[in-house]
């Protein structure tokens, strides 16, 4: 449809340019039309021949420019980048002409309008400024605008009166404590509401934990209990329950007013979680995604394969992420809970904290529940009757889940569009029992010995000399790459060689590819 746009553009441009108003206006005449057509055909053939000679498409625009007078101003704009056109085109095709708007006589109007439009039809140049790249000052301004708009959005659509968030975290000093606690700390630092962080530590309140949480800048209450954290997962979760209850007692005594959530130190929270819990009235529950796999990649792959097989056999839809949370009927009312299915892991779950096996959650994890702190107070107005009095709770009975705090579990509010949104993820990963870590994860003073990594080519090692021994292995060969050290430096490396060999010997039994081991050892013998 628009194929002959260019064709028409030439005719029309001629008709509305004030330079050559005469020749084409008569084209309306019938005989003139056929003459023009013939002329156009000849011109087209000429251009085709020239294109054949030159090797690229030769535009008829050139004739137009050649035969025009230079009285009009030509504005040369920088060339647009067209990846599909070859580069040679650019000087011919990108000349943009902006016909002088005011002076052009309008020959094309049928109805004689006196005003002429400021806008002219035809080819225009593509304007590109001299440095078409982002200006950092403007990027900064734009970000400030975005921030202002989002602040306005939040004030209009977000929560009108925000409640304080009370985060309860049981922790203890161990290798991965810094990893987990920093994660939770950074999440809590991003929360846009008032926050109090109650940290209960097993084994007493230590300076290590205090130094980690001091970096947060949020209001913290650091409580220690004397018992040490036991070594099995089951006992650990029992102690954690005890620690959480301690924290709730602190909340009750301090009369903190807000929403209590349980931020276990290895959990991961999304920011939407904190927005959602603002909606809780008394006692709410959210869906928790369970990441039950341990750090063992092989076992994870095996279990995934097994699960795929099971899926194919049983033809049942099992979601890839097990979720613990409220179950609702079609009218969004709470009817029960989804809990974690422990059957696939029977007998294979971790018992001790450093076992290399899947760590399973409890039936109902505490982190999936939030409650209004007024439930814990002694006297609070409008306290519902379906809540047990916290002060008279007997812990020795053992609290399985936060639902034991309530007389009537059906009054719990499901949050996160009735549990459809997974707002936090549960994970337990701990290091080996014999793992050592420097206090505060700071190595002070710095180590004296630096050992070269086997595979890294050091920049100050000169390249291989052109005369190679036959038995020297090439640099990149499978797992056992050897940095070939040239002869000049052997005196310095002689000390190192036995060490490396000994290290390699130590690691040999663990290599899975035994053939390579034998080849490397044989080659080493050859060299020596």
């Amino acid at each position: 449809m628009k194929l002959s746009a260019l064709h028409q553009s030439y005719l029309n441009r001629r008709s509305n340019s004030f330079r050559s108003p005469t020749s084409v206006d008569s084209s309306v005449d019938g005989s003139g039309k056929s003459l023009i057509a013939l002329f156009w055909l000849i011109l087209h053939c000429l251009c085709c021949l020239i294109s054949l000679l030159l090797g690229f498409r030769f535009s008829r625009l050139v004739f137009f420019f050649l035969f025009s007078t230079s009285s009009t101003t030509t504005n040369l704009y920088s060339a647009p980048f067209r990846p599909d056109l070859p580069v040679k085109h650019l000087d011919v095709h990108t000349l943009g002409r902006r016909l002088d708007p005011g002076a052009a006589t309008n020959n094309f109007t049928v109805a004689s309008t006196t005003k002429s439009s400021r806008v002219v039809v035809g080819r225009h140049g593509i304007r590109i400024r001299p440095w078409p790249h982002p200006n950092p000052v403007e990027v900064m301004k734009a970000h400030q605008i975005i921030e202002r708009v989002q602040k306005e959005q939040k004030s209009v659509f977000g929560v009108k009166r925000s409640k304080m968030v009370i985060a309860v975290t049981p922790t203890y000093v161990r290798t991965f404590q810094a990893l987990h606690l920093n994660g939770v700390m950074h999440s809590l630092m991003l929360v846009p509401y008032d926050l109090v962080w109650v940290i209960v530590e097993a084994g007493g309140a230590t300076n290590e934990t205090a130094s980690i949480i001091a970096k947060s800048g949020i209001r913290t209450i650091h409580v220690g209990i004397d018992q040490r954290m036991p070594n099995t997962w089951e006992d650990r979760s029992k102690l954690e329950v005890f620690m959480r209850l301690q924290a709730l007692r602190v909340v009750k005594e301090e009369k903190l007013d807000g929403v209590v959530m349980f931020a276990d130190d290895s959990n991961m929270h999304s920011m939407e979680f904190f927005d959602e819990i603002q909606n809780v009235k008394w006692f709410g529950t959210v869906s928790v995604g369970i990441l039950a796999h341990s750090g063992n990649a092989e076992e994870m792959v095996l279990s995934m394969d097994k699960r795929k097989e099971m899926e194919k056999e049983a033809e049942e839809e099992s979601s890839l992420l097990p979720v613990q949370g409220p179950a609702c009927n079609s009218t969004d009312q709470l009817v029960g809970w989804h809990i974690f299915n422990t059957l696939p892991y029977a007998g294979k779950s971790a018992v001790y904290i450093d076992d290399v096996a899947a760590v399973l959650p409890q039936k109902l994890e505490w982190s999936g529940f939030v409650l209004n702190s007024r439930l814990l107070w002694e006297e609070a107005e409008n306290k519902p009757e379906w809540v047990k009095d916290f002060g008279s709770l007997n812990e020795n009975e053992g609290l399985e889940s936060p639902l034991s705090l309530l007389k009537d579990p059906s009054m719990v509010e499901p949050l996160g569009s009735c549990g459809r949104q997974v707002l936090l993820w549960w994970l337990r990963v701990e290091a080996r029992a014999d793992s050592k870590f420097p206090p505060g994860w700071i190595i002070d003073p710095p180590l004296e010995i630096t050992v070269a990594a086997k595979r890294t080519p050091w920049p100050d090692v000169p390249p291989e000399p052109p005369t190679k021994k036959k038995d020297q292995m090439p640099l990149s060969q499978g797992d056992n790459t050897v940095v070939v050290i040239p002869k000049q430096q052997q005196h310095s490396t002689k000390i190192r060689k036995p060490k490396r060999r000994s290290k390699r010997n130590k690691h040999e039994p663990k290599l899975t590819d035994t053939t390579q081991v034998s080849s490397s050892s044989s080659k080493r013998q050859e060299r020596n």
Partner: protein
Amino acid sequence: MKLSSLVLIFIVCNLTFSTISAFRLSRSQPTERISGSAGDVLEDDPVGRLKVFVYELPSKYNKKILQKDPRCLNHMFAAEIYMQRFLLSSPVRTLNPEEADWFYVPVYTTCDLTPNGLPLPFKSPRMMRSAIQLIASNWPYWNRTEGADHFFVVPHDFGACFHYQEEKAIGRGILTLLQRATLVQTFGQRNHVCLKEGSITVPPYAPPQKMQSHLIPEKTPRSIFVYFRGLFYDVGNDPEGGYYARGARAAVWENFKDNPLFDISTEHPTTYYEDMQRAIFCLCPLGWAPWSPRLVEAVIFGCIPVIIADDIVLPFADAIPWEDIGVFVDEKDVPYLDTILTSIPPEVILRKQRLLANPSMKQAMLFPQPAQPGDAFHQVLNGLARKLPHERSVYLRPGEKLLNWTAGPVADLKPW
């Protein structure tokens, strides 16, 4: 005594209503009242202010065409079809032509589609001419005024010029028979041949259900600064560049393709509507014609439209203060678009967003079925009502002829 107390009550009521309306808190966002150059007319009710008579044309002018190609119901020119359906069941319709203020001719000129879905305008002048001949011979009302109290819906690219190419459209000009009628069209550009004085500019048709089904929660933070999806170069029809969009779209691409603030590309993602709701500014540059459905989409999704089209006339320009709502950028200023947009003060941006959030603004851009109060159909009727009463000069003396029935290209005179 009674009179003064009544007057007092009246004044008090006025004051309370004006303060309430100044900052009307709808269910969620505070919005601002929209008053254009014609006043606060977006919520006017046209019922009772005008009467429209709908001609009963043979179905070959409307229904049969639609049966041949039902795609006409969904493309952006569908306003002509829905206008007829609305008028047939509207309270402004009258079956007595003697009392009618306006006459409507339901002829679907934009329904001859290519396999791709683009309308071909080549037969439209003949179809229009044939329809007018029919009504001129069967009813006396056309000859009475030579069409000055008739209105037609011509939603094609360049309105009643009936061509998709601007130069050809300018060459043809508005169809001579429609020179005195009121045209309801989507095209609008100041001082252009194809925009007649007194025309009513309407937005292009955008499917309301489709847009409503893609709404996301309003509290989703707007994190994209500038958003645009569409062509920058039309390689098929304009291989050398500089012709399509008068080079403006290409300039946007060349200047801002590596700017992280500008989320622009030619891909058509499935989350197009959702992304618009996450953007602060949406570019609405011209294409082959200055108007586009992007304006409607930007208004519905609360994204401030950045209009890059010189001298464009936007829909319902006398009822909607587009200068306060959108940002107008001259085509020559496109290389400095980032400077222009970042130098707008945040209060102005927030005010524009409040104006856009006004539900009457969103309603005025849509053609819902069935019609709802304040929608585009009603705005068209409001516009027609504002042109009443007709001047004396509209009515011709008997025997007087102002239109030349044989003017125009020869091909147009053939029967349809």
